[in-house]
């Protein structure tokens, strides 16, 4: 401690921990490191198990498509929770979004559908904001009510408007979907590379190929929204004020920030993003219309992806990718592919155990060894997983990830707290 203060007497020595300051790896570099690491593990697993679907173009493409709604919902969660409002109602706002997307697209084309979805989702957000910010209702209670209401309104409107058109109250007539674009020269070259089946390179080529071919404008917008959210929330005055409402609204109020207004903006943006997530289910290939229970809990998974990402845009991108991949893999490859993923998890755990041993954390390393042993036993003892349980791969992954990682997470400090103007102490 003393050596540090001698060098820099102006630093506040009371609150800074005594550790020598290590150079931090910048966020984008860490993201690239993670991506390289994950590709390395997947290609090793794919090589050792002989299951090519683990890194095929098809898997990556499906994963990307399935990750989009989760990504948008997670971004929605980010905007609300950074402003200090827990948003369990993402699911209901997403359902509203699916109805709006189908309605708008049927009458006015895909862009009108996207607009209607955002609008309806934002309306759900507005309702949540009125209940939680103005009336101080418990955030989770209000969210649950909005989920109920969103479901009811979407069903009612579907019976009223879609049934005469499609003859079925549970689904809309087919609607147009977004055109897709491929970076064709890049995609061709990557396809060649993948076909050569060289260890590592072909795997990376397959995964990247899935991300650059058949991309819709909506997907590009969604991906761009991640750096955009980061820029707005972390690099502008507006963002600083919005986040201050989530960390310490009383302090923000004392500096003249209109906390109510910022919370309203955060939650309405959150609803709009969730509605957009609903549109991503309807207006992309594989969708093509409103369907009852289409969201199937994706709003909740988006929330989990955001928590997994430690309430940060880069992290939630990783979370959404993880869930999208778990979902896409079982669609593309079925039980054998999920088993191969277990093998990949064993490899990942092995790496983690080595790291923990170097850091001399014996207990964590022991847990890692036990976990890897159990997973490897499951992999070794089965040829296929029960088909009834495979659709829930993403949910199991969420539980395990939360159990392992939740203690290192740091939510916004006043997330979910009551706030009324002028009642701070």
């Amino acid at each position, binding site marked *: 401690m003393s050596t540090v203060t001698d060098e820099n007497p102006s630093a506040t020595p009371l609150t800074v921990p005594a550790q020598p300051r290590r150079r931090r790896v910048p966020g984008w570099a860490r993201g690239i490191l993670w991506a390289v690491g994950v590709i390395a593990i997947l290609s090793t697993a794919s090589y050792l198990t002989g299951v090519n679907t683990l890194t095929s173009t098809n898997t990556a493409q499906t994963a990307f498509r399935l990750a989009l709604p989760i990504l948008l919902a997670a971004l929605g969660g980010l905007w609300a929770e950074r402003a200090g409002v827990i948003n369990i109602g993402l699911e209901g706002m997403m359902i509203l979004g699916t109805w709006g997307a189908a309605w708008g697209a049927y009458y006015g084309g895909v862009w009108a559908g996207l607009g209607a979805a955002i609008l309806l989702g934002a309306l759900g957000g507005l309702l949540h904001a009125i209940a939680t910010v103005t009336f101080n*209702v418990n955030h989770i209670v209000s969210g649950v009510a909005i989920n*109920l209401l969103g479901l*009811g309104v979407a069903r009612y409107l579907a019976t009223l408007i879609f049934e005469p058109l499609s003859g079925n109250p549970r689904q809309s007539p087919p609607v147009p979907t977004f055109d897709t674009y491929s970076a064709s020269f890049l995609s061709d070259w990557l396809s060649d590379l993948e076909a050569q089946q060289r260890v590592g390179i072909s795997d990376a080529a397959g995964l990247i190929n899935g991300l650059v071919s058949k991309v819709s404008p909506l997907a590009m917008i969604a991906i761009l929204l991640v750096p955009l959210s980061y820029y707005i929330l972390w690099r502008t005055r507006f963002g600083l004020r919005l986040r201050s409402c989530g960390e310490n609204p009383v302090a923000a109020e004392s500096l003249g920030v209109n906390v109510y207004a910022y919370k309203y903006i955060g939650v309405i943006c959150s609803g709009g993003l969730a509605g957009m997530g609903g549109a991503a289910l309807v207006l992309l290939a594989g969708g093509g219309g409103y369907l009852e229970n289409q969201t199937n809990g994706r709003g*909740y998974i988006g929330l989990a992806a955001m928590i997994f990402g430690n309430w940060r845009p880069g992290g939630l991108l990783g979370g959404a990718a993880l869930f999208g991949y778990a979902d896409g893999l079982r669609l593309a490859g079925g039980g054998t592919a999920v088993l191969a993923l277990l093998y990949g998890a064993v490899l990942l755990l092995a790496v983690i155990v080595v790291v923990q041993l170097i850091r001399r954390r014996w207990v964590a390393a022991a847990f890692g060894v036990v976990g890897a042993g159990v997973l490897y036993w499951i992999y070794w003892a089965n040829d296929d997983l029960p088909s009834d349980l495979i659709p829930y791969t993403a*949910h199991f992954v969420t539980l395990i990830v939360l159990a392992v990682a939740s203690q290192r997470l740091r939510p916004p400090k006043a997330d979910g707290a009551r706030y009324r103007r002028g009642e701070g102490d």
Partner: protein
Amino acid sequence: MTSWRTKVLPPLLAIIFSLLICSIALLISGSDPLQAFATMVEQLFRGTTAIDTVNLGCVYYLSGLAVAIGFQMNLFNIGVEGQYRFAAVIAAIAGGAMHLPPVIHTFVIILVAALAGAAYAALPAILKVTRGVSEVISTIMLNSIVGGIVAFLINPSQFGVLTGNNLRTEEIDKSGQVPGIPIGGATLFGFVFIAAVIGLAYWFMLNRTRFGFELKASGESATAAAAGGVSAKKMTLVAMLLSGGVAGLIAMPELLGRDFSYAITSTQNYGFTGIAVALLGRNHPGGIALGALLWAFLDKSAVSLEQVDVPKEIAVIMQGAIVLSVVVAYEVVKRADLAAAQRRVGRAVTGKPASVAEGGAV
């Protein structure tokens, strides 16, 4: 100080408000709200609807109680949905496999159900206590996963039986069933009385035992309770297990009184309804009973709306609106009460009406 206004006024306001919202929705879609509501009330006195409503209300009551136990401890047990379905399928399999004398058989099935529900609730409880995982997210994940578990267990290669087109578990013997009371053309579940007893036990536990006091205390303020020697972690664990245990019973009225086996098509979403019912009843056993009956009435009578060409989904909108407006109404009335109390204190202290700055009326 809570007056009768705090207790009775909010639900009434909420129901009136949601009636208004639904009237607007109905008017926009071009139907007559009064006619629609009248049809729903008339339906109650037609055929077996009244008994069906009470039967369904019994299910919702248990679900509301399960959620309310969590609420007392500030725990948000969204997982009631998963816990009850897990318990139902386990109890149905166990009950179908066993052959015991009458009363004992029933008792064992109920016990198995409660234990299975508690076991499924133990997972999020342990994750919360040891790893700090929010129970909201983990129970939502477990709710989804239970669909896979039910499908897996009812599979013919495991414990299921294929009858016609429907996969179900083995039928429970006559000895395990709970006899009902035939009224008119319908049968009132015998489980209604068991549910009432559970409600009484809940009231007794909360208001007349040390455990209930500690539960409420650590729900109100974990730090204050810890200062009084109550471990918040232990209370979290116990409350979650109790909640799961009661959740395990939710499917029992139908399983032991009507269906006698659990099928892949058995009704879902009772657990989510429980959240709404508990909110409506303010975690009070009597309030939950009223909320459960109201909810069941909306569900059962909505069917009649088809006769007057109104989509029956309007009932779902009404339910959502009731929940949202009831919580808002509680908040508004609480604030009004608080302001009134401040005025009263102001008057008592100074002997003259309080000024606006002291919280007096404007």
